[in-house]
């Protein structure tokens, strides 16, 4: 079942068309990477999903309910982590989460347990200092905790790792991976390695539309074949049984064969190359392909 469905979404700011006919479906309990250049409309899309911005046309459904601009009821299903989460600097993490819990109307008896669990999840348990003394990474982790306070079915994270150092990025990605079973995560980013690392699916937003969707868990994703280095004599021995596409410098590409089949054939012909590798397209290859 889809937790998020966007149909033919349009949004312009004066004469600047940001989103022009976006269609998107995100399935439950997946991590979906929403990729695009800076200014491609990722944040605008997310804000429309949250009812913070009004779309010019199109419809958005969260958990089957239509999103309305303003105070949309669908936000009870959503947790949101902005790109730069801002808090009340004079509070500490526990006080802030308590405020969030009260606003989301979590029962008093459950609040403490929920807050303790989230503080532990994001590694802020026992941190008494006020938020004004937090590092960027700590703020981002608190941002995840506040976004998860209402046990959302959908967690939307807007570039959660883009301003963090490698350690901070790793921490955030680990947390997102940990919560995958509890909630669906949609996160926007232009850091493709983050998407490859944790996402099940990725959608590339370009010129206001979703131009390509990639299933990152598909074993066959981006398979470019097997690259092998053969000298002329080895090539001659194999040529009858194996389709070899010449790439130059004694390099050949084998396609349409499994690695097991290739090894067996090489062994049958007593060919033992010192360079053999399965090549895949990276997300970056796909991204550059569709955006250039």
């Amino acid at each position: 079942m889809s937790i998020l469905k966007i149909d033919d979404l349009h949004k312009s700011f004066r004469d600047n068309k940001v989103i022009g006919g976006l269609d998107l479906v995100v399935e439950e309990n997946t991590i979906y990477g929403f990729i695009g250049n800076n200014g491609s409309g990722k944040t605008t899309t997310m804000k429309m999903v949250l009812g913070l911005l009004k779309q010019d046309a199109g419809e958005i459904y969260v958990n089957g309910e239509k999103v309305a601009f303003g105070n949309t009821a669908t936000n009870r299903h959503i947790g949101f982590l902005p790109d730069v989460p801002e808090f009340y600097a004079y509070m500490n993490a526990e006080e802030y989460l308590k405020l969030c819990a009260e606003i989301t109307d979590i029962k008093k008896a459950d609040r403490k347990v929920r807050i303790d669990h989230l503080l532990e999840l994001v590694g802020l348990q026992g941190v008494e200092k006020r938020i004004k003394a937090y590092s960027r990474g700590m703020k981002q982790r608190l941002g995840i905790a506040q976004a998860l306070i209402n046990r959302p079915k959908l967690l939307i994270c807007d570039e959660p790792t883009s301003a963090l150092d490698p350690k901070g990025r790793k921490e955030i990605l680990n947390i997102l991976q940990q919560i995958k079973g509890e909630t669906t995560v949609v996160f926007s980013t232009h850091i493709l390695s983050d998407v490859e690392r944790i996402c099940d699916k990725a959608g590339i937003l370009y010129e206001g539309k979703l131009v390509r969707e990639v299933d990152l868990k598909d074993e066959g994703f981006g398979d470019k074949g097997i690259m092998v280095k053969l000298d002329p004599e080895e090539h001659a021995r194999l040529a009858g049984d194996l389709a070899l596409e010449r790439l130059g410098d004694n390099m050949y590409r084998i396609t349409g064969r499994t690695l097991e089949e290739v090894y067996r054939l090489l062994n049958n012909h007593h060919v033992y190359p010192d360079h053999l590798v399965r090549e895949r397209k990276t997300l970056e290859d796909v991204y550059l392909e569709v955006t250039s």
Partner: protein
Amino acid sequence: MSQVRALFKKEAVESVRSFKLFALIIVFMIIGVVSPLTALLMPDILEAVMEDSGIAFELPPVSAFDSYSQFFSNANQMGLVVLVIIFGSILTHEFSRNTLVNLITKGLKKYNIILVKTVFAALAWTLAFVISALITYLYTIYYWGDAVHNLFAAFGLTWLFGVFLITLIMAASAVFKSSFPGVLITVLAVVIIMMIAGIHPDIAEFLPQYLIGSNMALLHGELEIGDMMPSIIATVISSILMIVLSILIFNKTEM
């Protein structure tokens, strides 16, 4: 109700930890102390000045009216300016720091934000003003002991004008979002427009400004509370309209 309670608590914690409430109370306590003190010391000050300049002048005896005159002069000018400066950013700083996004996406109703902030500011203003008025009242009773006609009604006029300014701040904040100077300029512009409009006697008594221009006339018995009704009703209606306007604008605001 849970949202209102949570938000109110947040406003209270913020005003205490940012020292805003403390600052407001201190300023009004100073006004409360300084007003009767100025009235008390004024003859001595004037006498000293006149002696130096060689002018002979018979000063009338100081009374409770002088004390209250000082109080209303201070509260209606410096006091209200401080009120606007302290609460002028009550909503704009939330816009400029983007702190409301987290809460609104959790289902916090936008009208609750406007209502709670208005009520909280009005309560803080009430607290500071009551403390100030009470100090002046007690000192005045102590030094002069005179019972003054319409005293609490006169206090009420300034208080009501303060509430009007708070609602004006909310409306200006809903329009200008993150611009604190925008809010200050709007409040100043509205006050100036009211002052200019108030030159016309037929319009004057229907303006909120009339409230803070009539405190002493009320004490002297030149005006009665019934005479203030057009201005009071106009101020209450304007304040309610300002809040409704703030909510309508805020509801349509993209964030």
